[in-house]
């Protein structure tokens, strides 16, 4: 999962400081693996260096001063490219796809498009495996079937998520 892209996606809602970003990330995507502060700040400094975020003032508080970060136009383009590129279909997708769907909904982009692009990539890989299976021996068939069944499970998830997008959009907007 690309933490940089997820943070950029969260910044599209408006400028935030590092602690706030970590909290938003953990709440939406980090149930099992919350981010370390170090990860947040090193990612932000990389995004700053690449021109995907800019500093947007300092928030005064009781503790140390907190820098706020805003997404730049180059950052928005980068998020768009990420959302539009399917993940390489692998038996275990982890939660990247879920994050893409949520971030698409949060930013008013088409989550259906994200899901359709992914299902197409999955089916493309399944076609390749099916051809290999058809031309191959029993060992090929068994190896390909293993991958095919796992990819099929992903596709079922994609289909189910597509059917629940309206509900998810409501929950994400809360």
């Amino acid at each position: 999962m690309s933490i940089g892209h997820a943070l950029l996606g969260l910044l599209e809602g408006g400028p935030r400081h590092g602690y706030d970003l970590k909290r938003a990330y953990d709440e939406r995507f980090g149930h099992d693996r919350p981010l370390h502060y170090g990860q947040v700040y090193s990612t932000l400094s990389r995004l700053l260096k690449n021109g995907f975020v800019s500093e947007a003032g300092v928030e005064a508080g009781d503790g140390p001063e907190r820098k706020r970060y805003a997404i730049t136009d180059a950052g928005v383009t980068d998020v768009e490219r990420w959302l539009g590129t399917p993940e390489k279909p692998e038996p275990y997708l982890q939660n990247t796809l879920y994050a893409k769907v949520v971030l698409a909904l949060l930013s008013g982009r088409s989550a259906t498009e994200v899901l359709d692009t992914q299902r197409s990539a999955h089916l493309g890989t399944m076609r390749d495996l099916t051809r290999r299976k058809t031309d191959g021996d029993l060992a090929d068939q068994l190896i390909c079937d293993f991958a095919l069944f796992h990819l099929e499970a992903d596709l079922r998830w994609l289909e189910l998520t597509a059917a629940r997008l309206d509900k998810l959009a409501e929950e994400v907007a809360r």
Partner: protein
Amino acid sequence: MTLLTAEGLYKSFGKTNALDGAGISIREGEVVAIMGPSGSGKSTLLHCLAGILPPDSGTVTYRDRELTTMNDGARSELRRTEFGFVFQFGQLVPELTCLENVALPLRLSGMKRRDAERASKEWMARLEVDTVADQRPGETSGGQGQRVAVARALVTSPKVVFADEPTGALDSLNGERVMHLLTTAARETGAAVVLVTHEPRVAAYSDREVVVRDGRSRDVEFVR
């Protein structure tokens, strides 16, 4: 070259809009999977494409002929000569032997019994069901019955085979065998296949997919 095109199809059943502006284009010899959740309109789209069901509005064109303006007689003639069909259940005549079932479309077109049965036997061998030629459908396994149905769909050398959930009632292994034999035979004879399925592993035998959601269809181009 484009063989079959549907544009702006609308079809309602009572208050339910099964098709809401769906369109699709099928090229010669390609295998296209129509996918989508239950109730999305994918079977209705197939039935309209095959001239089984008239749409409320929109056009279906096969080569230069518009199905939507043909009379019933001309449409059934087209279905008998140019199209083949495989459904999920109940398509074989239970009183006839499997061989007679495969030969039926040829006999209906006026072919002599001996010629029809000779051609049918070749197709049954190709679909690996020649061993059940003299049995009735009820005496065969589900997988064999479905392969007999595929042989019957292909025996007239159709230009398009419409298959609606052809593996829906089969286990994985038999389903794969039906799909392998169906798509191999179709590719060898140059027939296009329009396949409705909700199973991704079945759709993976196709060349491309069209997704139907809420009665609207969209081609999903895969970008590598």
